[in-house]
């Protein structure tokens, strides 16, 4: 089962996809290039300092707004290992799993972590451990179908492996 550990980048409620990657970058088709503009709509420091495996923490309705898959792609290719939000907007949630970026819903997450905290996430067990504070939170694990998609690395490898829909 997937385990992820990284530092926290913490944001508030309603982080929309225009904040995650502004509309002017929708013309990009190269994933690495999208990654260079991650969070540019609200945090110019993010791409300069993000490290592989870091965890983006959001409040309610993370990823609301447009259907752009550029949003989870930008986060993934910037190095983000996982998104944990109090709740995720529907299309973002689905897109993230489809491209192999874990997106988790954990209702009390923003109250429990601070910028820079070290987190360990166990996707199978449904636990978030805050190593900096020595606290642990539970979240409802993803449904089995979505876990399978994530473990395959996204919907494309998942479908290729099964060769059926």
């Amino acid at each position, binding site marked *: 089962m997937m385990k992820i550990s990284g530092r926290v980048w913490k944001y508030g409620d*309603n982080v929309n996809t225009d904040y995650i990657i502004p509309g002017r970058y929708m013309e990009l088709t190269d994933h690495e290039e999208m990654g260079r503009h991650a969070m540019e709509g609200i945090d110019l420091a993010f791409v300069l300092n993000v490290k592989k495996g870091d965890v983006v923490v959001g409040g309610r*309705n993370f990823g609301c707004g447009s*259907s752009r898959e550029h949003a989870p792609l930008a986060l993934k290719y910037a190095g983000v290992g996982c998104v944990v939000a109090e709740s995720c907007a529907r299309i973002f949630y689905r897109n993230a799993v489809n491209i192999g970026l874990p997106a988790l819903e954990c209702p009390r997450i923003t109250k429990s972590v601070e910028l820079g905290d070290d987190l360990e996430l166990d996707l199978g067990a449904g636990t978030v451990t805050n190593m900096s504070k020595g606290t642990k939170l539970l979240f409802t694990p993803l449904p089995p179908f979505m876990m399978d998609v994530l473990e395959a690395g996204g*919907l494309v490898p998942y479908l290729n492996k099964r060769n059926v*829909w």
Partner: protein
Amino acid sequence: MTGHTISEKILAAHSGVDSVKAGEVVKARVDACMINDATGVLAVRALKDMGKKQVWNSGRVIVVLDHVSPACTIQSAKVHRELRAFSREQGISHHFDVGEGVCHQLVPEYGMVKPGDLFVGADSHTCTYGAFGAFATGVGSTDAGAALAFGKLWFKVPETIRVDITGTLPDFITSKDVILRVAKLLGVDGATYAALEFRGKAVTDMSVSSRMTLCNMAIEVGAKAGICEPDEKTYEWLREDTDENTAPITADEDAIYKYTLDVPISGLEPQVACPHNVDNVKSIQEVEHIKVDQVFLGSCTNGRLEDLEMALRILKGRKIAPDVRMLVVPASKQVYLEAEKRGVLRELMEAGAVVSNPSCAACFGGSIGLLAPGEVGLATSNRNFKGRQGSPESEVYLSSPFVAAASALTGHITDPRKV
């Protein structure tokens, strides 16, 4: 046995089962799939990465170049070139190039959606087609790629919030004011994972164009779909006869709803969504002092003929304020030509507006009509996120075409009933 909502009925009919209930996951056949220049290249790549050389049905795929249109950067020109080549190679006849208009206007204009359809589009405002009694929802590029490859996709059957719109719309109050009111009541995540059914005499009284405005913004409260029951107006708009074998899908009297939201509108004032969230909605009196630099009339929300005519009702024979620029962008070539024929575009230009080619234009912040730091834009489009229409230090307010035109006239946000 209890009854079913429109969403449950459409999803059941496309999954080959008698009935489904909210919460179930189904694999369903889609009637059509739309991609555009913002999302299309990634969808095409997903299709190819799935090892598919052909789309499942080239007659049911729609490709639209509307978001950055005409291309304003070399990279966007490359995206257009790639999608043109894709449409040619796949034999996609519903390819709409630069100048044709916004995807959500073109899909119904070309009869690519009808009542009871299950439609997916790689654009969040795909929910617009709920105005025609379809279950239409926005998906990302990989899901769109899977739909292009297999003509199928998995869906979680949503719960439905019934939105009862009661009373009669006062003069100068529009379906845009109604949906902004709904956004205020529900909040930006109030309908996440749910569908909305818009009901009531006020909806029946609305034109199909106004219903499109209503359904268009269902996503702004997180909804998966926003649906109106089809009626004679729907079929007339689509120029289709009701076929007895495909009677329109309506909700059962005893359908189970998550809850019912009552929205009385008889005393509704003009509504304005303030920066930087769509549910930050205020009545016009609270924002009348705010000075505007740019007014944008257009988009899949309010770029149709009736919207342009609303603006003209305010601006006819008058001039907009000298320090305001007003950008008018009809939603499609058909809208453009009809507005031109009726003299609407000419009169708006004489009032001081700039008319641009049908496209997403300023709504998307990717091409024309950007705002500088410190500037204020008032738009008839659907999103006012920080930086949506240009600089992150600009501000965007959202309103009806009446409020937009009245504000262009005075240079500050203005109650259309006062001018």
